[in-house]
């Protein structure tokens, strides 16, 4: 093999190797994009840097062992929102209550399916201020599972929670908000094209 040919050959091998390395980076970064899906959630939960007004931990805690702070009051406000794709009634039974940190409470939300067909919906929670999110423990919540309602069906949905006594002193008011949305994807697109029923329009 002559010298120029040899040089060309080693050059090609070198190019192949570099191309392969760069190609592997591309594949790796494509995977990284998908790895972001679980990582995003893990990082946010682990470090508490998540979204402000995030959903809280939703952890189930044993409320019997926590110490109740009888001398401290925290006001909890309840809020209910509906996504534009869902034609339900949805509101909390009480607008706000005063609670002691460490004590377990139960409240309920009411929801009614106003349409003429069965709907599976999901409530997405949010807590403000975001600093309080890690101290709000739900022991039972309608937001843990999807809610199925037949046409015209309505019911009370319970929510049990404990405020962690470690809640920072300066947080005196906490707002818990739920947004209900239809899990059926088609309905999302429908809202832009379908006319609302007359009854809904009148309520406006």
């Amino acid at each position, binding site marked *: 093999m*002559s010298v*120029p*040919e040899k040089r060309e050959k080693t*050059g090609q091998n*070198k*190019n192949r190797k*570099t*191309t392969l390395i*760069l*190609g592997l*980076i*591309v*594949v*790796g*970064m*494509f*995977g*990284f*994009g*998908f790895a*972001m*899906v679980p990582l*995003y*959630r893990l990082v946010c939960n682990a*470090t*508490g*840097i*998540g*979204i*402000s*007004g995030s959903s809280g931990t939703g952890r189930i805690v044993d409320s019997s062992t926590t110490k109740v702070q009888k001398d401290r009051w925290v006001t909890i406000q309840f809020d209910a929102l509906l*996504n534009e794709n869902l034609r339900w009634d949805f509101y909390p039974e009480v607008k706000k209550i005063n609670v002691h940190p460490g004590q377990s409470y139960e409240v309920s939300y009411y929801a009614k399916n106003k349409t003429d067909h069965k709907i599976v*919906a*999901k409530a*997405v929670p949010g807590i403000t201020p*975001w600093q309080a999110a890690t101290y709000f423990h739900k022991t039972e919540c309608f937001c843990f599972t999807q809610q199925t309602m037949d046409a015209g069906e309505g019911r009370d949905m319970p929510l049990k929670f404990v405020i962690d006594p470690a809640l920072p002193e300066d947080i005196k008011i906490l707002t818990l908000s739920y*947004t209900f*949305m*239809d*899990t059926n*994807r088609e309905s*999302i*697109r429908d809202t*832009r094209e379908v006319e609302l029923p007359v009854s809904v329009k009148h309520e406006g």
Partner: protein
Amino acid sequence: MSTDVAHEEHHHGPPKGIGRWLFSTNHKDIGTMYLTFALTMLFVGGASAMYIRAELFMPGIQFMEPDFYNNMVTNHALIMVFAVVMPAAAGLANWMIPMMIGAPDMALPRLNNLSFWLLPAAAVMLILSTIVPFMPGTGTAVNTGWTLYPPLSIQAGMGMDFVIFTVHILGVSSILASINIVVTILNMRAPGMTLFKMPMFCWAWLFTGLLLIIIAPVLAGGVTMLLFDRHFGTSFFDAAGGGDPVLFQHLFWFFGHPEVYVLLLPSIGVIAMIIPTFSRKPLFGYKSLVGGMAVLFTLGLVAWAHHQYTVGMAAGPTTWFMIITILISIPVGLMLLNFMMTMWRGAMTFETPMLFAVSIVLMFSFAGVTGIMLAVVPADLEYHDSMFVVAHFHYALIPGALLGLFAAAFYWLPKWTGNMYDERLGKIFFWWNVIAFNLTFFPQHFYGLAGMPRRIVDYNPAFADLNMLSSIAAFAYGISHLLFLYIVIKTVKGGVKAGNKPWEGAQVGTTGLEWDLSSPPPFHSYATPPVVK
């Protein structure tokens, strides 16, 4: 293969007919195709910009549905970023890098052909995405802007699927081009051409290529998830199914912020060639400029969420992204100082490429200043999504990317064609272009700060006068590019012969090997590698 055959192959001219272009593996031909494609798409993307300015000429809705207006905004951005600036920069890389480092061609010539020919297909798809929503039953227009945020992008009509596939194709094209360029720079340098003897343009493209290899796949992944959410019932970004729309914003901007440097760095490389030439002094601080680009590369990858201050991130990460963003001003400021120190006490002359280069230093600094305003979280909450942001990124991207490409065209046209361009027309183009640009975008700072939001078809009549000024200047700015087209065509057709070294200062300091070749260079150059001392 016998050496005789190789010898024959390397000395025949270009093949005849359309096959020369369709099956080309020649870096010069592919470079020409890239540049031609970019210039063509400049007029397509410019047309949508003219549409936008025509609609904003007066308050009220003139002749566009709001959805169509937003579709124009989407189109304008996608075309300018993906079909104009990136292909033009890739075209420069194709033309110049092998000649600069003394390589016979790009390292992967067939891949080079593929990465170019994917582009016209993507461009057709992109234009179809605008046309499809006019058909009945195809849903709304692509009204999301180039950021394609869900949930709106999940609800948008069929045009969005065209956009998603366009992004896929463009992503593949730019990844292949980047791999090719990085491999060429790393492996194909002539003997003696060490990394630190390379022209700055090659360094700039080395960082650009590596950036694209890292970020483009993430965008591809993000839009793939979007496609799955739209059609296959997944819930990556759908809160009702347990997903999170903010995740898409993170994926998009993980790509989108470094993308700014992908657009910027090739032009920085270009003006790092031009300013020493016309100052007749070596580049000031060669290694510090390389270091500055390396720092920019690193910081650029971890600053993305400053586009999302208002989305409701907690204070901790917001502070991180604010600090990183403000830190970015250090390497960028360093680059600008390098350029100014190069000009300092140089024997400067102001031919068209130099005029562009000097104006870039000035106007890009201006974008840097508004950039720092936007980086500060409490201030940004006020500026977010206003026309002030539009003014900021047009000052960053037109001088930072587009004008650098014009400068490159004027600088290397004599080398490419063998003819000098018309210097008088070049100067007219420069002043017309830059004055009209400033008149278009400078007022946007004012009505942006006064409260005019971006991406909305109508606006408060209080902003009418300045918007009218913006629109008139924008039409003048748009038309100026026809003069550029005329200058290019005129230069290709003929003119004063340029000679091998059309610029007397081009041999100063760290320069490429392209000036050792004839103008225009032979179809195959440096078949035997030159030796660099």
